[in-house]
C-alpha cells in the first residue's frame, strides 16, 4: 500500500497511508473511531463507499485488487458475524456455496470441504448443520472465520472481529484466528481498538490518527515504549493493574479533528502537550526513530 488517500465530500478521511504486509505476518491497525483504520483496511479489499474517491496504490501480489479477488485471495471478517452470514441458510451450506463459487467442486465435495473447515475451528456436525441464529456469538464468529479461510486466501482482513464478544471469548476467537491464519499461511490484518489484544497477537502494529500513521513498528516496542505523543497518550488512558485506584486516568484533551478540519501542521498538534510552532506549521512525515517509523517532530527519547 503506497500513499493511500480516501476522500469524502467533507474532506479526506485517509491522508497518505503507506505500508507493506509481509506474507504470514499479523499486522494490526489501531486508533480511535474516525482515525481511518477501517477505511484503510477496506481499501485493501477494494471495499470503500461509492461516494469516496481513492488515490494511491494498493497492490496485492504486485497487482491491483479487483472484486474477483474477494473471497479467493482476500477475505473479510467483519465485527458483526451476523452481517457475514445469511440467516436463512445452514452454516455448512454457506461455506459450501463459497467453495463452489471459486472452484468446480461438486456439491458433495464442497460440502465435505465446508465441514472440514468448520471442524478446524471447533464446530462439529451439529453446529455445522445449524442456522446462524441457533449459534452463540462466539460460535458464529468461528463460523465466519471458517468462511473467510475456506478458499485459502493470502490476506485476511479482520475489522474489529471481537468487539461484540466478552473478554474471555474475545481471546479465544483471536487466538483461533491467529492460529488458523498461521496454519494456512495467510497474512492477517487486524483492525482493533483493543490494545491488550493487539499487544498479545500482533507482530507489527501501525497506530493511526486523523487519517495518517503516527507510529509503525514491531508490536512490542511500539506498545511497551511508545515514542509518538499520541501513542503514549492512548496507552496512558487505559485502566490497568498497578495504577493507583480511584485516581483520575490521564486523558488526551480535546477530540480528534473532523475529516477536512486538519490544517497544514501535524494532525495531533492541537491536542499534543509538546506541540510547538513547527508542529503547527508542518505535517511530520514518517521517519526511523528507535527501531520504528514515527511521524512526529519531537518523539520522546530523541534529543531536542
Amino acid at each position, binding site marked *: 500500500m503506497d500513499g493511500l488517500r480516501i476522500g469524502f465530500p467533507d474532506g479526506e478521511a485517509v491522508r497518505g497511508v503507506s505500508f507493506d504486509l509481509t506474507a504470514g505476518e499479523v499486522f494490526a491497525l489501531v486508533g*480511535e473511531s474516525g482515525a481511518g483504520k477501517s477505511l484503510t483496511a477496506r481499501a485493501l479489499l477494494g471495499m470503500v463507499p461509492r461516494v469516496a474517491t481513492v488515490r494511491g496504490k494498493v497492490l496485492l501480489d504486485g497487482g491491483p485488487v479487483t472484486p474477483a479477488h474477494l473471497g479467493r485471495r482476500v477475505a473479510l471478517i467483519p465485527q458483526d458475524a451476523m452481517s457475514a452470514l445469511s440467516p436463512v441458510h445452514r452454516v455448512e451450506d454457506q461455506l459450501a456455496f463459497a467453495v463452489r463459487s471459486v472452484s468446480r467442486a461438486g456439491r458433495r465435495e464442497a460440502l465435505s470441504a465446508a465441514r472440514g473447515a468448520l471442524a478446524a475451528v471447533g464446530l462439529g456436525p451439529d453446529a455445522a448443520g445449524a442456522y446462524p441464529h441457533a449459534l452463540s456469538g462466539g460460535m458464529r464468529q468461528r463460523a465466519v472465520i471458517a468462511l473467510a479461510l475456506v478458499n485459502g486466501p493470502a490476506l485476511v482482513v479482520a475489522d474489529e472481529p471481537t468487539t461484540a464478544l466478552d473478554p474471555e471469548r474475545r481471546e479465544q476467537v483471536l487466538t483461533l484466528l491467529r492460529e488458523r491464519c498461521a496454519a494456512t499461511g495467510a497474512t492477517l490484518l487486524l483492525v482493533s*481498538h483493543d490494545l491488550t489484544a493487539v499487544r498479545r497477537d500482533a507482530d507489527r502494529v501501525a497506530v493511526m490518527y486523523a487519517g495518517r500513521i503516527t507510529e509503525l513498528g514491531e508490536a512490542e516496542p511500539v506498545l511497551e515504549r511508545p515514542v509518538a505523543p499520541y501513542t503514549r497518550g492512548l496507552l496512558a*488512558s487505559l*485502566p*490497568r493493574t498497578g495504577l493507583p485506584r480511584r485516581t*483520575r*486516568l490521564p486523558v488526551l484533551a480535546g477530540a480528534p479533528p473532523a475529516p477536512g478540519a486538519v490544517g497544514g501542521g501535524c494532525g495531533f498538534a492541537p491536542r499534543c502537550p509538546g506541540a510547538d510552532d513547527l508542529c503547527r506549521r508542518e505535517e511530520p512525515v514518517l521517519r526511523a526513530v528507535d527501531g520504528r517509523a514515527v511521524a512526529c517532530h519531537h518523539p520522546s527519547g530523541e534529543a531536542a
Partner: protein
Amino acid sequence: MTPLLDVRDLVVRYGTRQVVDRVSFTVGAGEAVGLVGPSGCGKSTTALAVLRLLQPAAGTVRFAGVDLTHLPERELRRLRPRFQPVFQDPHGALSPRRRIRDQIAEPLRVHGRWSRADGPARVDELMERVGLSPAHGLRLPHELSGGQCQRVVIARALATRPELLVLDEPTSALDPSLRAEILNLLMDLRASLRVGFLLISHDHAAVRHVSDRVLTMRDGRLIP
C-alpha cells in the same frame, strides 16, 4: 446502619433456567461496588432485578430498607427517582427525535419535579456537571459523539438526585480515550455527589479502577 442496597438470596429464572442463583451483596451509601464476570454469567440480569425491571423468582432487594421485590407499582414509582440506571449503548438509550435538553429534563417531568421557574436551570447545571456545554442541549443525539451521548445519559440519570446509579457496561461501547474520560467523570461525580454505584462490566480493569469493592459472578453465582 442499613446499607443503601441490600440484595439477599436473589434468584432469577428465565423459564426453567436459573440465571441468577442465590446472589447476596450490599452497596453502602456513597460506595462503589463493581460486579464483573463473563457474558451470560447473570450480571446484567442481576442489574435488571435490582432495578425491578424484571421480577425475581425469590430473594429480596432492599433499597434504603424497603423491599422492592413485592412493592406495589405506585410505591415503587415513588422510590424510582432514588435509584437510576445507565445502560451500555447511549444512542439506544436516547430518543433520536428529541433535543438533548428535553431528554435530560424527562425524569423531572415524569416524577412531577419540573417547574418552569427552576427546571431549565437544573438542566443547565446537570449538563455542566457532566461536561456538556449549553449548546449541546439544543442538538439531537445523532449530532453528538458516543462519549457525549453517554454524558447525556448520565446527566439524565442524575436529574432526580439519586442515591444509587446502576451502571451496566457504561463504557463498553467507547474508544479507549473516551472510556477514560467517562471513568474520570464517574469518579468525579462520586466524589462531588456522594452517589453510590453498582458498576457492572466485563472490563475488569475499568471496574477495579473505579470501585471500592469488586464482586465476581460466574454461572449465576457470586464466587468468593
